[in-house]
């Protein structure tokens, strides 16, 4: 094994020789430079392999002196990993920088090497003064590198940066000197022991000096002004290199120095500074219009987060791995993003609209890295954050979770604000194409690839290995995303095969070990829904090129979520689902902005759920099966947080504003899935997660009001409010969007009843809603595809042109409205019986009212599209594509089957609820008659009755009167006038005007006003905060002083 000291030696040696070698040509010097870095990478990786294999960490003693007198270096697994990362970044950075004129000189090469050496030294050394030396090497290297830039702003920023860096080093050196005075040693390990014996009054001040020095170097809030200017002004490639080398090394140094800080007040001070930096930097980043500046804030925030975790590592080793994951994640993502920023060249956020229109690899990398840094799965940052949160939850420091989650949400806001521009359709002004040189983008691709690979590996480890269908679906999806050559229809066909295969596989699995019942039900719902969409996709284009790949990832994540038994697996699937569906929503023509709103609310929901899960984790519970063990206040908190999160995700009244846009603007083929399946996942959460938390635990909540009753009213209000809003929509998909949200409200309400009958109602509706709403959305998708419009006023009379779609919508609305004899009636019947059974009488009445209101929009939907007057331009329109009709046919068959024989589903549901509640909700009196404690109905008898009446009356109509003749479309009674053209007499606009007038008092836009108020306040805060950074060096000095005072107050208090 190579001695690690050689890493430093070789670096230094080559660095000094490079100018000489350069005489032989730039190619040679570059090759040598790269070879040196490669050497470093290989050596450190081999060490890493050996060390993780159980080898002893290397202790290097320099100059033959034994520590503490001599300087010693340590090369353990952490060190090896960090050094490898530094070398890797440096290689990629070198490749990238070679394409940038001012950085392609031999001087630059030398300094790049020096930076790596400095970082390696900082990482390995155990000596404080030695630390200072390497700090200076790194510092000088970075100033020099930044100074190569030719822009005036860059130079000015570089100077300020240098000034701050020097001041920081001075603080550090002063502190070290005093420490030496106090303890008589410079060796870190030695000093820790000796310091505990020192009781001199000034020791706190000394420690403060060291800390301020390091914190200033790490650019924590509010000392990060110059650093952020640097991000904005300097070449991004240089910053990427600094992130991978110096910044990581500094972080590690801080980690090492942490051993000196013993008192709780120190730990609190560090945590406070770290968390403040995290939250404030993220807040300020929201209002940034410049990408690089935003990335700078993000770096500060990430550093803050890691610093925040440092004090807790002492008490919980789990946090160590959290820290490592976060650091890895940050390096990969931030370096990659900085390179991307350099390659793209867009400085303003708005320059990024439809970035990299012709390179899917770059787009995927960009998206993956943004997701990674935003802390979403499957990327390492997610797992890091999870572990950090678990660590916090299990300690007394759990209140820190709240700012951590708030900060993370803010992080989502600006990263997805950026992503919103990127996912917009490419226009003429879209920039960024894959340049000819592969080497420039190699780093980006490498880092993105690494992030994805780590992600897949980590996810697989939670979801039961790479062979898990969920993981495989995800991988196929990833391949499809990248594989741009395959036509959309072929991709859809492949998706059919993939989903079909998963269905078979799940069936096989079910044979071996019985799936947990609720989970099995939702699995069937999800996979059937996915299959339907994929089949329909063979017939019509959907979204953009990466639709099907993302769709498979989405399906995979849902499968993973549903099959995972651990809370972590559930939440990972949840977040995966969130972002993959975000991309799909954004693929609609106008989908970018609604997509952002969707993502933000989903993100907020995610963090609420995370909070709930953390409450459980804090009690030492990490699998769903154990959730029942929760009790007392923890159970209440967990239940409330989870329920609130799921309620946001189902777009309950009050937080529904994301739903209409997301549903209506998402690609037409995706909306059925969004409505039929994705909206059911939070329902699954309620049924499988929240409901497992034992109900008696919070009977005394709010003076006797059950939380479940509150949830029921939330569901009921949603059902009513959304139904009412659906009535007034002028856009077919928007109408169905509101309707979807309302229908899920019924489900929430039914589940909240927590009775066998209520659950039967809720779960029946889950299946039924999937069937009829997918059917409706698919039929509308076909109509939109053919007519090119979603507005009711632009359609009409299509029944003659699209009869099968008409039948689909007809069956859909009958099933929706609950009119017998179709399956919707069973749903309504179950719901009302359940509610009366539960004693929620007023709710029952209002739900009956809501169902009656639903008729209004049902009729409007079918009338405005299919009935009334056919437009002139639609006279030659064709029926929807065949695969779309096949999908609809499957759904119709399913609806009819459930209508004639509700027992097909009700019987399994009875087994299910019996398993949960110990008793069934329904009895089966005869083969077809279904009875509950309150009532009964006989679906087959009603169906027969209707059919018999229908046939008799049809015969009457055909034979009792004269032969009827069909007349032309405009041959109507129009006051004996010749009617005007169909466009003028198709009554479709403002269809329920009197209704709107009647409901005016309660139809205010208070909800929208509230949320835009929230947005305004946040932005105003961020705006005010942004002014902190004046760009003036004097103010920065003032901040430094204030910072020291505050820190002293916090740290010395104990």
């Amino acid at each position, binding site marked *: 094994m190579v001695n690690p000291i050689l890493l430093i030696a070789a670096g230094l040696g080559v660095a000094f020789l490079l100018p000489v070698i350069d005489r032989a040509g730039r190619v040679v010097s570059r090759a040598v430079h790269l070879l040196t870095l490669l050497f470093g990478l290989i050596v450190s990786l081999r060490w890493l392999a050996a060390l993780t294999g159980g080898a002893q960490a290397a202790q290097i003693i320099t100059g033959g002196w034994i520590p503490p007198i001599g300087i010693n270096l340590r090369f353990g697994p952490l060190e090896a990993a960090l050094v490898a990362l530094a070398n890797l970044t440096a290689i990629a950075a070198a490749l990238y920088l070679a394409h940038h004129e001012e950085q392609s000189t031999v001087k630059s090469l030398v300094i790049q090497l020096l930076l790596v050496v400095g970082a390696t030294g900082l990482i390995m050394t155990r000596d404080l003064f030695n630390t200072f030396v390497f700090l200076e090497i790194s510092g000088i290297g970075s100033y020099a590198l930044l100074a190569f830039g030719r822009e005036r702003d860059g130079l000015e920023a570089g100077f300020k940066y240098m000034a701050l860096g020097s001041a920081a080093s001075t603080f550090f050196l002063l502190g070290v000197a005093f420490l030496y005075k106090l303890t008589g040693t410079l060796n870190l390990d030695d000093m820790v022991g000796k310091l505990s014996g020192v009781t001199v009054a000034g020791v706190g001040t000394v420690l403060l000096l060291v800390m301020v020095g390091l914190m200033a170097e790490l650019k924590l809030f509010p000392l990060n002004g110059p650093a952020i200017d640097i991000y904005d002004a300097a070449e991004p490639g240089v910053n990427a290199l600094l992130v991978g080398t110096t910044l990581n090394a500094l972080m590690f140094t801080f980690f090492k120095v942490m051993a000196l800080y013993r008192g709780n007040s120190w730990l609190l001070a560090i945590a406070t500074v770290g968390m403040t930096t995290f939250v404030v930097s993220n807040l300020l980043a929201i209002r940034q219009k410049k990408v690089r500046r935003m990335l700078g804030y993000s770096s500060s925030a990430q550093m803050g987060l890691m610093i925040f975790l440092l004090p807790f590592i002492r008490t919980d080793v789990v946090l160590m791995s959290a820290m490592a994951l976060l650091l890895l994640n940050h390096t990969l993502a931030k370096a990659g993003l900085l390179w991307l920023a350099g390659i793209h060249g867009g400085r303003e956020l708005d320059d990024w609209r439809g970035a990299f229109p012709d390179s899917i690899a770059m787009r995927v990398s960009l998206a993956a890295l943004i997701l990674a840094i935003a802390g979403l799965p499957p990327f390492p940052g997610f797992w890091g954050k999870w572990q950090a949160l678990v660590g916090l939850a299990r300690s007394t420091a759990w209140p820190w979770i709240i700012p951590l989650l708030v900060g993370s949400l803010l992080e989502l806001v600006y990263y997805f604000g950026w992503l919103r521009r990127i996912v917009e359709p490419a226009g003429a002004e879209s920039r960024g194409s894959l340049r000819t040189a592969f080497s420039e983008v190699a780093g980006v691709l490498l880092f993105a690839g690494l992030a994805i690979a780590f992600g897949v590996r980590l996810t697989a480890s939670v979801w039961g290995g790479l062979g898990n269908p969920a993981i495989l679906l995800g991988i196929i999806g990833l391949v499809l995303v990248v594989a741009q050559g395959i036509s959309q229809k072929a991709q859809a066909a492949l998706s059919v095969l993939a989903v079909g295969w998963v269905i078979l596989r799940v069936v096989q699995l079910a044979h071996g070990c019985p799936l947990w019942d609720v989970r099995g039900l939702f699995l069937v719902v999800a996979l059937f829904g996915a299959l339907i969409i994929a089949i329909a996709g063979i017939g019509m284009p959907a979204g953009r090129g990466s639709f099907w790949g993302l769709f498979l990832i989405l399906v995979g994540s849902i499968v993973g979520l549903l099959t995972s038994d651990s809370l972590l697996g559930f939440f990972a699937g949840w977040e995966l689902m969130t972002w993959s569906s975000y991309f799909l929503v954004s693929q609609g023509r106008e989908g970018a902005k609604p997509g952002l709103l969707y993502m933000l609310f989903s993100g907020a929901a995610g963090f609420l759920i995370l909070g709930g899960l953390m409450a459980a984790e804090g009690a030492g519970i990490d699998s769903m099966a154990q959730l029942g063990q929760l009790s007392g206040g923890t159970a209440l908190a967990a239940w409330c947080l989870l329920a609130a999160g799921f309620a946001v995700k189902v777009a309950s009244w009050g937080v529904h504003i994301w739903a209409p846009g997301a549903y209506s603007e998402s690609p037409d083929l995706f909306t059925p899935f969004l409505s039929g399946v994705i909206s059911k996942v939070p329902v699954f959460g309620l049924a499988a997660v929240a409901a497992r938390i034992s109900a008696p635990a919070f009977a005394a909540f709010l003076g006797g009001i059950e939380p479940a009753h509150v949830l029921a009213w939330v569901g009921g209000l949603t059902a009513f409010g959304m139904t009412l809003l659906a009535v007034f929509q002028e856009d077919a998909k928007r109408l169905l969007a509101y309707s979807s949200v309302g229908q899920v409200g019924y489900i929430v309400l039914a589940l909240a009843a927590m009775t066998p009958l209520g659950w039967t109602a809720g779960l029946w509706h889950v299946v039924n809603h999937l069937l009829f709403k997918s059917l409706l959305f698919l039929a509308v998708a076909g109509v939109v595809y053919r007519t090119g419009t979603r507005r009711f006023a632009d359609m009409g009379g299509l*029944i*003659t042109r699209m009869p099968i779609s008409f039948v689909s919508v007809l069956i859909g609305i*009958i099933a929706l409205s*609950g*009119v*017998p004899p179709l399956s919707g*009636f069973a749903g309504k019947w179950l719901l*009302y*019986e359940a509610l*009366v059974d539960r*004693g929620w*009488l*007023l709710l*029952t*009445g209002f739900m*009956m009212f809501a169902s*009656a209101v639903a*008729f*209004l929009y049902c*009729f409007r939907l*079918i*009338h405005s599209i299919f*009935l*009334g007057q056919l437009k002139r331009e639609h006279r030659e329109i064709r029926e929807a594509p065949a695969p779309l009709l096949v999908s609809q046919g499957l759904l119709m068959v399913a609806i009819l089957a459930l209508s004639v024989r509700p027992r097909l589903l009700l019987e399994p549901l009875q087994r299910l609820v019996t398993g949960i509640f110990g008793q069934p909700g329904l009895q089966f009196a005869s083969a077809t*008659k279904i009875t509950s404690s*309150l*009532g*009964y*109905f*006989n679906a087959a*008898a*009603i169906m027969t*009755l*209707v059919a018999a*009446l*229908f046939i008799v*009356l*049809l015969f*009457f*109509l055909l034979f*009792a*009167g*004269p032969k*009827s*003749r*069909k*007349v032309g*479309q*405009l041959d*109507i*009674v*129009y006051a004996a006038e010749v009617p005007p053209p*169909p466009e003028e*007499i198709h*009554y479709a606009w403002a*269809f*329920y005007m*009197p209704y709107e*007038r*009647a409901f005016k008092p309660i139809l205010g836009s208070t909800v929208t006003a509230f949320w835009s108020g929230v947005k305004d306040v946040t932005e105003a805060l961020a705006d005010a905060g942004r002014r902190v950074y004046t760009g003036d060096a004097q103010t920065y000095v003032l901040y430094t002083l204030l910072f020291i005072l505050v820190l002293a107050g916090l740290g010395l208090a104990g």
Partner: protein
Amino acid sequence: MPLATKILWSIVGVFGALAYGLAIGGVIRKVMARIQGRIGPPVWQPYIDLGKNLSLRTATHHGVMSFIAPIFRAAGGIGVFLLVPVVIGVPALENFSFSGDLLMVMYFIFFGSLGMALGAAEAGHPHSPIGISRGLAQMSSYELPFALAVVALAAQAGSFSIREIILAQQGGWLHWNLFANPLAAAAAFLAFLGMNMYAPFNIVGAPQEIPVGPPTEFNSQFLSLLMVGRATFAVAKIVLYMDLFLGGAHSLPEALVKTFLIYFWSIFVGAVFPRFRTEQSIRFFLGWPTLAGIAGVLLVIFSH
């Protein structure tokens, strides 16, 4: 009772309901005429109209949906009638009420309206959808007090079965829900005005505005079927109200008297009021009737 006999009886029942429904229609016209100081048509005029419409020589329709819409309408009316027990204790006159409870009846009511709406809309005349939009709007709003009343009754009787609800009212007229829960009854009887669509709630057909509303384009045998549906549906509604609020009936004459009284509640109101605007009608039902319904439900909650 064997199924064949049952079917035979129900056919008789349906024709009986049709005859009764048409006769009631005739009586209404007579009553309205007398109120206006006219002689009025003979009571059997609706039968003649029905016969006339069936003896026409030509008929027109506008497409499949407009062809089968009257079937929906009539099937809806007859179906609802067949699901409501007319005379309790006489199996022949309890119809098919064993196939579905009160909820089934409530939702079957929509069957005819929905089908009719579809057919009328296909006919392409703008008055049809205007009428339907008014009708649906009004329907949804009177549904609220009616639903609250139904919930109150069901909770009171502990069952959604109409038979059970009737049985719970036995033992003297003070046990009728009309008196046992007067608030719910008030809500339901106000909703009944909307259901029957006489003035002031005749906004669907609104003469002088959208002359006949939805059925503008229907003629000949289609119109006859609509008349059949309307007549049977009217009977089904009043029988349902009798079962829910007036303790059902034990004999046919009793049923006739009770249903006649229920129906004439809306006729007499209709004779003296002018028409509401659509939004006034909606606001009306969401006002006092709804409050009465809520009070009725609360009465049940707090008295049990």
